[in-house]
C-alpha cells in the first residue's frame, strides 16, 4: 500500500497494511530537520517582492522539502501550508502551485489535507462576550452568519478539491477540558447544521473530512458523529476523552485520530509517554479506522526526542 491508499483505508474504517500517521500541523521541522517548512521568502511581506520565476522556484523547493520531511516522518497525509493571500472562498495561486508541486514531488502517493472548517469556534476575550450576547439577543442574525461562513467554506473546499486536496481538516475548536463552550442545545442550533453541510459537500467533492476539536467532546460527540465526518481528531486525553471508550461507542461510524497525550509529551515522564502511545495503539488499532497522532500537534517547545519516541512505538506496533 502507498501512503494515500493507507490513509483512505483508515479513513473509511478499513484495515490497511499498517496504522498510518500524520499531524494537523508539524512545528518541529526546524529542530528535527534544520529549517522551517515555510521558507522566510514566502512569508507575508516578503513573498510579494519575489518575481514570478523566483516564487515558483521557492515554492517548488518548499514542496521538495515538505516531501522530504514528511517522508522521513512516514506521514500518510501531508498538511499543506497556506502561502500568499488565501481568501474566505478561494486559495491563493501560490498555495495552488504548492499543492500541484507536492502532488508531483510525491508522485500522487500521499494524501494532501488543508483547513476546511467554516463553523463557529470558541471566541477569544471580548469576542466571547459579544458572541454570547448575540446568541441571546439576535439568534437569527447569528444563524445567518453561520450559513454565510459555511457557504464560504464549501466554496473554498470545492476549489481545494479541484486543486487536488483530497482531505480536509476541520479545526474549529468547540470544547474546553471541562466540556463544550456552547451547550448541546446551542451546538445543535448554531453549529451542527452548518458542520453537516460542509461535510456533506466535501463528500460530494470526493474529499475526506477529519473533524478536529480540542477538549472534552463527550457531551456533543453524538452530534458531531451525526454530521458524518470520516474521522474525529484530537480525542483529547487531557480533557478525559478515552479513545477506548470512543472506539467502543462510535468505532463503527467514524475513524479515530489522535489521543496520544500532548502534555505528557512535553512535561510527563518517558513512561507516561510510552503508556499513552501504547494505549492508543492497543485499543484504537484493532479492526482498522485508526490514524496514529498526538492529541494536538507536535508544537514548538515539545522535546523532539519525545516525538521520536512515540513514532518509534508506532513503528513497533503499527502492523496489522
Amino acid at each position, binding site marked *: 500500500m502507498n501512503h494515500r491508499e493507507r490513509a483512505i483505508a483508515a479513513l473509511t474504517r478499513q484495515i490497511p497494511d499498517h496504522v498510518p500517521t500524520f499531524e494537523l500541523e508539524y512545528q518541529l521541522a526546524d529542530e528535527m530537520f534544520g529549517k522551517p517548512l515555510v521558507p522566510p521568502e514566502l512569508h507575508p511581506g516578503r513573498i510579494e517582492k519575489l518575481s514570478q520565476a523566483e516564487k515558483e522556484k521557492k515554492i517548488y523547493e518548499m514542496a521538495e522539502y515538505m516531501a522530504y520531511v514528511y517522508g522521513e516522518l512516514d506521514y500518510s497525509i501531508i498538511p499543506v501550508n497556506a502561502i500568499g493571500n488565501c481568501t474566505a472562498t478561494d486559495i491563493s495561486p501560490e498555495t495552488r502551485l504548492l499543492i500541484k508541486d507536492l502532488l508531483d514531488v510525491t508522485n500522487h502517493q500521499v494524501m494532501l489535507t488543508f483547513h476546511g472548517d467554516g463553523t463557529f469556534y*470558541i471566541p*477569544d*476575550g471580548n469576542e*466571547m*462576550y459579544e*458572541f*454570547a*450576547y448575540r*446568541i*441571546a439577543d439576535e439568534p437569527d442574525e447569528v444563524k445567518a452568519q453561520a450559513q454565510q461562513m459555511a457557504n464560504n467554506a464549501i466554496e473554498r473546499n470545492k476549489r481545494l478539491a479541484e486543486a487536488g486536496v483530497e482531505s480536509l481538516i476541520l479545526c474549529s475548536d468547540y470544547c*474546553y*477540558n*471541562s*466540556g*463544550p*463552550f*456552547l*451547550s448541546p442545545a*446551542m451546538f445543535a442550533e448554531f453549529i451542527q447544521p452548518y458542520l453537516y453541510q460542509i461535510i456533506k459537500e466535501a463528500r460530494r467533492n470526493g474529499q475526506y473530512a477529519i473533524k478536529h476539536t480540542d477538549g472534552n467532546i463527550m*457531551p456533543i460527540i453524538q452530534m458531531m458523529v451525526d454530521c458524518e465526518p470520516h474521522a474525529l481528531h484530537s480525542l483529547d486525553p*487531557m480533557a478525559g476523552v478515552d479513545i477506548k471508550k470512543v472506539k467502543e461507542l462510535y468505532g463503527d461510524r467514524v475513524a479515530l485520530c489522535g489521543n496520544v497525550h500532548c*502534555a505528557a509529551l*512535553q*512535561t510527563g515522564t518517558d513512561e507516561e509517554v510510552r503508556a499513552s502511545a501504547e494505549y492508543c495503539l492497543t485499543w484504537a488499532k484493532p479492526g482498522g479506522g485508526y490514524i496514529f497522532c498526538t492529541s494536538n500537534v507536535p508544537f514548538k*517547545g515539545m522535546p523532539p526526542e519525545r516525538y521520536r519516541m512515540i513514532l518509534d512505538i508506532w513503528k513497533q506496533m503499527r502492523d496489522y
Partner: protein
Amino acid sequence: MDLHEISEKLQAGAAKAVAALVQQALDEGYPAQKILEEGLLDGMNVIGEKFKNNEIYVPEVLIAARAMNKGAEVLKPHLAAEGVKATGKVCIGTVQGDLHDIGKNLVKMMMEGKGLEVVDLGVDVAPSTYVQCAIEQNCSMICCSALLTTTMGVMADVVKAVEEAGIHDKVKIMIGGAPVTQHYCDQIGADFYAADATTAAEIAVDYCAKVANG
C-alpha cells in the same frame, strides 16, 4: 414583589427585566442589601452551581453576568448610601507571557457574583504587578490564571515575589488554569488551588470572610 423574581430573571439572562425589577424593588422600599443578596447574588449562586455541575455552559454564564451587572448598576448608589461594602477584595490576572483570559474572566464573574470586589489586572501580568496591586489596593488574595504549561511557571515567581515583599501572611495566593494541579500548587507554595471558576469564587469568599472576622 418577590425578590426571588430578580434571581430567576437573572438566571434567564434577562438583563432589562433584572434592571427594571431592581428599580421596582427599590421603589417598593426594599433595602439595597436585601435586593443584592436575595435577588442578584442568589441568582448568580444558582448560576455558579449549575456551571460547576455542567448543567449550563459559558454563554449562559456570560448572559447571566450581564444581567447581574445591569441590576448592580441600578443598585450601586443605593448600596453606597446604605454603607454596604463588598464581602472582600481580591486581584486577579493571567500570568506573564500568557494572553488567555477566558478562565480568568469566568472566575472574576463568579467572584463578583458572590459579592467580592475584584481588581482585574488583565493578561500578561508580571509577578511584581500582582504584589503592587495587593499592597496598594489592600487585597486579601492574589489570583493567578494560566492556560499554558510554558507559562504556569510564572506562578512560582508570584509566590516568590509575595514572600519577598513580606506580605504572605496577609495576602494569600490562589492558582488555577488548565495545566495547573493541586500538586503543582503544593509544590510552589501557593495557598489555594481551584479546579473551576465556581470553586475559585467559593474559596475566595471563605477566605475573605475569615479575614473580615479576624
